């Protein structure tokens, strides 16, 4: 099956700043593909080229076999877009906006169902200017889906949403995917990428650092795990530092904190058991995608919602 989206050697510069240096990626039918990276990494420019809103300086783009610039008319019918700052006239009401946008497409979705699905039913008669940030966001998601698109590109899907609304939106997106819609998600929320994406492209400074599954990315970053416990009796740290799988042992009050590779937990528990030490309040922290990101790019993402 040919890929739904194919980007090859995309390059785009604005005056003196290179926004996208060399981006190649393919998105397969039915997957949720994440584009992850810090602000200014070139994520939005990349998707705007895919949407046909910007003209690339170099490179080739195909979406559903169409050229985003030459086949605009056809592409807009099949591609749903949520812009990072997608606005509507201030005095337009929510239901009016959905009804209007649904009239643009040959086979629109039922906009009333979308309104309910996104929890906007009681805001149907509210003007756009009077909506909260989260409600505006949900409306822009609804507008991206109202045309029953084969592919949807969602830029900063849940920015500005509270945690509950964010989870509801994730459910909604999974529902959309289960109907066979391919989704490209631009995000800087690790939790979102981990939860939703089948594959991720890590973009930094206009280049794709790597493309992998969220788990694959974490593993590739070779991040150590962190084991923390309270020993049931006095113990010598050297018991643990001598283990080849352990890289460091530190104390924090009565807690022992051990860093090591993925086999460290086994080794530590074996040694403790042999010495009849019980590891109380044992906690193991797995490397998160966020750690992997920092490891792979040497940069932090935007502070998350936590």
């Amino acid at each position, binding site marked *: 099956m040919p890929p739904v989206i194919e980007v090859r050697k995309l390059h785009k510069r604005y005056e003196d700043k290179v926004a996208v240096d060399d981006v190649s990626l393919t998105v397969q039918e039915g997957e949720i593909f994440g584009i992850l990276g810090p602000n200014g990494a070139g994520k939005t420019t990349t998707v705007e080229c895919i949407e046909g809103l910007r003209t690339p300086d170099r490179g080739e783009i195909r979406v559903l076999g169409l050229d985003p610039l030459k086949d605009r008319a056809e592409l*807009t019918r099949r591609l749903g877009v949520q812009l990072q700052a997608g606005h509507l006239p201030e005095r337009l009401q929510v239901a009016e906006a959905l009804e209007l946008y649904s009239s643009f497409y040959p*086979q629109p979705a039922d906009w009333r169902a979308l309104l309910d699905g996104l929890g906007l039913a009681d805001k149907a008669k509210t003007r756009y200017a009077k909506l909260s940030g989260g409600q505006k966001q949900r409306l822009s998601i609804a507008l991206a889906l109202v045309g029953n698109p084969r592919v949807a590109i969602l830029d900063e899907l849940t920015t500005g949403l509270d945690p509950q609304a964010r989870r509801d939106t994730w459910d909604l997106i999974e*529902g959309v995917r289960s109907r066979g819609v391919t989704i490209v998600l631009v995000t800087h929320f690790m939790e979102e990428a981990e939860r939703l994406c089948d594959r991720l492209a890590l973009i930094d400074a206009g280049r794709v650092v790597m493309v992998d599954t969220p788990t694959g990315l974490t593993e590739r970053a070779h991040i150590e795990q962190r084991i923390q416990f309270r020993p049931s009796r006095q113990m010598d740290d050297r018991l643990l530092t001598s283990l080849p799988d352990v890289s460091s042992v530190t104390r924090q009050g009565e807690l022992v904190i051990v860093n090591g590779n993925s086999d460290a937990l086994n080794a530590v528990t074996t040694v403790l058991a042999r010495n009849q030490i019980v590891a109380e309040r044992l906690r193991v922290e797995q490397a998160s995608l966020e750690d992997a990101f920092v490891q792979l790019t040497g940069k932090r993402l935007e502070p998350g919602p936590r």
Partner: protein
Amino acid sequence: MSALRTAAPPVTAERGSATWRLIKTESTLCVRDKVGPLWGIGFPLVLLIILGSVPDLREPVEAGGGLTYFDLYVPVLILFNLAILATASLPTTLAGYRENGVLRRMRTTPVGPARVLAAQLVANFAIAVVAMVLFLAVARFGFGVDLPEHLLGFALAWLLAAAALLAIGLLITALAPGRGPATAIGTVLFFPMMFFAGLWVPISQMPPLLANIAHYTPLGAGMGAFQDAYLGHFPSAVPLLTLAGYAVVCAFVAVRWFRWE
């Protein structure tokens, strides 16, 4: 979500329904915006009624071909309506759409931003038609002012004036960097344009230099053509060509330099 999965089978939209719905939506928004209805219709209508109640204005204007001051105010206020739509309503709304990304969002739909522009023009045109008919009717039935004797000539002059003014509105939108500047440019243009339409002094009583200038301004030309029609002639070529010139040149420049983002 279950609501989505059980969504009703998609219905094929009727042809042209998108354009029609856009026009309806933009018209609704124009009415909600209040600039057009309030300043474009309400204010000149009140002015018309007040001026119609002043007996002194029923005196014939010198060199006015038998028309009274009040007779001349009817077409002046019709132009007032067009000027408000062109300098306040249209450019402010469209520049706002550009600033807020409304036009950009439209670029990602099959309809495209040009049709939003067209729908705005249609909506403003509709308000202008309503105003023109209303003012003529109020003047006729409320104050006994005869309709223009040459109705066809009047209609043609009005259409050209509407085209010229809406083109000026588009030009302001195209050249203004944002909503604020668009409003400012519109306001600055409004007063001299209305002066040359004869809002304060009838053109026939202006000093020769000003009167000559007036004939080549959009509203002064409109006024000249209207006056011909009121007196029973088909409007002469100079004002009609002046209006057509404004319409063509401003529309051309606006289209050439229009920015969607």
